[in-house]
């Protein structure tokens, strides 16, 4: 299941989507809104999203993980709009026969979500400023993505 929502993410529902008597292992990852980043204090986050593409990218990632790790089930839910401190912004749950596959798939999915899914986070700082977060420290996925303008 892939779901993008402006509502609170319920961990029990995400778990229920992957639990199965065929699985021996469930890994649930929750990304939660941190109060402090490099000493600065956050009031809340807002998420922007390219909706159709984000859904299709998440579905591709899910299918790739299901096949690569022979998962029993996989569920990804991402929050959109405003998210308060301590709230869940993303939930990834996977189930599998053995635990190694569940851990590996869960971690890979989170890595990929942060590289390729068109969702953006805006920090609302306590001083009233807002910053869209566009990480520059990671290399682009391929050399074609670089452009040189004089």
């Amino acid at each position, binding site marked *: 299941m892939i779901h993008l929502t402006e509502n609170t993410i319920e961990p029990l529902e995400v778990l229920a989507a992957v639990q199965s008597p065929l699985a021996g292992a469930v890994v649930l990852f929750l990304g939660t809104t941190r109060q402090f980043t490099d000493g600065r204090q956050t009031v809340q986050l807002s998420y922007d*999203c390219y909706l159709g593409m984000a859904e299709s990218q998440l579905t591709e990632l899910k299918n790739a993980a299901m096949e690569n790790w022979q998962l029993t089930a996989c569920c990804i839910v991402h929050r959109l709009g405003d998210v308060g401190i301590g709230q869940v912004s993303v939930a990834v749950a996977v189930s599998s026969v053995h635990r190694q596959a569940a851990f590996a798939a869960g971690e890979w999915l989170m890595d990929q979500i942060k590289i390729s899914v068109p969702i953006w986070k805006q920090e609302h700082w306590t001083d009233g400023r807002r910053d869209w977060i566009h990480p520059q420290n990671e290399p682009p996925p391929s050399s074609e993505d670089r452009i040189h303008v004089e």
Partner: protein
Amino acid sequence: MKQTVKMFAGARDAVDCREIEMSLPEGATVGQLRELLHLQYPQLRQWPTFRIAVDQRYVADDFILLGKEELAYIPPVSGG
């Protein structure tokens, strides 16, 4: 040919618009679109690693545009 490009997050703020309209030569590639975007909107140069999505997929710079595609400017993502 004219094509609109969807803008998101910080890039939307930078151009102050949800979509921008670009005039492209017939048979332009995505690489040409990238160069034109940075020429016409220098404020977008702050994201050298931006990507272009064509019909909701990332494509290579040699992808040739026909004029009816859904285009989007994808600055570095920060979901999760």
